[in-house]
């Protein structure tokens, strides 16, 4: 049986509602969840608080996403994220940022922004990311929200598909995340969305929610090649 991982839960770890959300995630079939903390609020204490939220059947990990799309000084922001969280990602929307992010050792995943006006994830970046054992992350809820409100035009979907094909060509795993504040999405629905909208194979879609994020969180895809300590698995 697969154990699904919910990546990027945007919730305050100190809020009362977090317990309800975690129970809901467990009911939907998730066995691990990654709580996303803004880079400015990240500290050792926050990481410990997040990890302490773990339940009997649900492991809770801490993550930080640095947004290179809106923050021009994202490299300094990234350098200030210490200690290294369980899962560290950089959201990119430009070729130069994508090339830079694929080279940085501490980064676990590169998030492809769906509001892209050009193809920015190319063979050079993907190859480098595969060499440093990163993954490429597809944020599902922004894609679904833009699709529903008809703001995501077909050209953007095409660009996303091309970028995922490039990743597949070099053997770079795809992980699906759901960075939304609303109700969590069921694993089978998330995999269906990935398959139907972005033409990712069904097994690959399921792996994107289970095997690949689990491998990162357990430390298998991480850091023994990059020269950092492994995270708790």
């Amino acid at each position: 049986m697969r154990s699904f991982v919910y990546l990027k839960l945007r919730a305050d770890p100190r809020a009362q509602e977090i317990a309800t959300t975690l129970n809901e995630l467990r009911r939907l079939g998730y066995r691990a969840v990654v709580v996303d903390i803004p880079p400015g609020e990240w500290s050792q204490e926050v990481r410990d608080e997040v990890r302490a939220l773990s339940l009997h059947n649900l492991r809770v990990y801490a993550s930080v996403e640095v947004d290179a799309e809106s923050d021009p000084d994202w490299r300094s922001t990234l350098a200030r994220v210490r200690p290294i969280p369980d899962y560290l990602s950089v959201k990119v929307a430009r070729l130069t940022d994508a090339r830079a992010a694929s080279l940085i050792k501490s980064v676990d995943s590169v998030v492809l922004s769906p509001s892209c006006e050009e193809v920015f994830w190319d063979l050079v970046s993907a190859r480098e990311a595969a060499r440093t054992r990163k993954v490429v992350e597809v944020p599902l809820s922004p894609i679904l929200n833009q699709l529903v409100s008809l703001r995501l035009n077909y050209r953007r979907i095409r660009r996303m598909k091309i970028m995922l094909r490039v990743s597949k060509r070099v053997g770079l795993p795809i992980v699906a995340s759901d960075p939304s504040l609303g109700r969590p999405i069921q694993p089978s629905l998330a995999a269906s969305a990935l398959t139907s909208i972005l033409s990712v194979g069904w097994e690959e879609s399921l792996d994107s929610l289970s095997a690949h994020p689990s491998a990162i969180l357990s430390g298998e895809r991480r850091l023994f090649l990059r020269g950092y300590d492994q995270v708790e698995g």
Partner: protein
Amino acid sequence: MRVKLPRGVVGRRRYVAFTIVPHGPKNPPSRSELERAMSEAALYLFGVLGSADLDFSIKFYSGRSGKGVLKTDNRSLPYALTILMTAAAAVGPFTLEVDGVSGTLRGLARKSCSPTKTL
């Protein structure tokens, strides 16, 4: 810095020289009108997900002569021509004529016997 994509991820480039011929004294549509009509025709004919598999854009277009060049790829070529034909019919009483198809702009100029620089 240039985007480098592996072979086969996107189709092989095709350029289509076309003319939009008006019925009667009406002027051909403007570039923006044609582009908008093409986008609507693509969504109407193939939907969002179907259109996402297609690559087509107007490379050159002259609103005065109605001549233009459509950029597409070998996989999307028949769909792109259908979209262009539908769009031409949608913006007014126009018909579409294809003057030539080629993989390069130079080859296209040779085939369609009209230098693309004058478009």
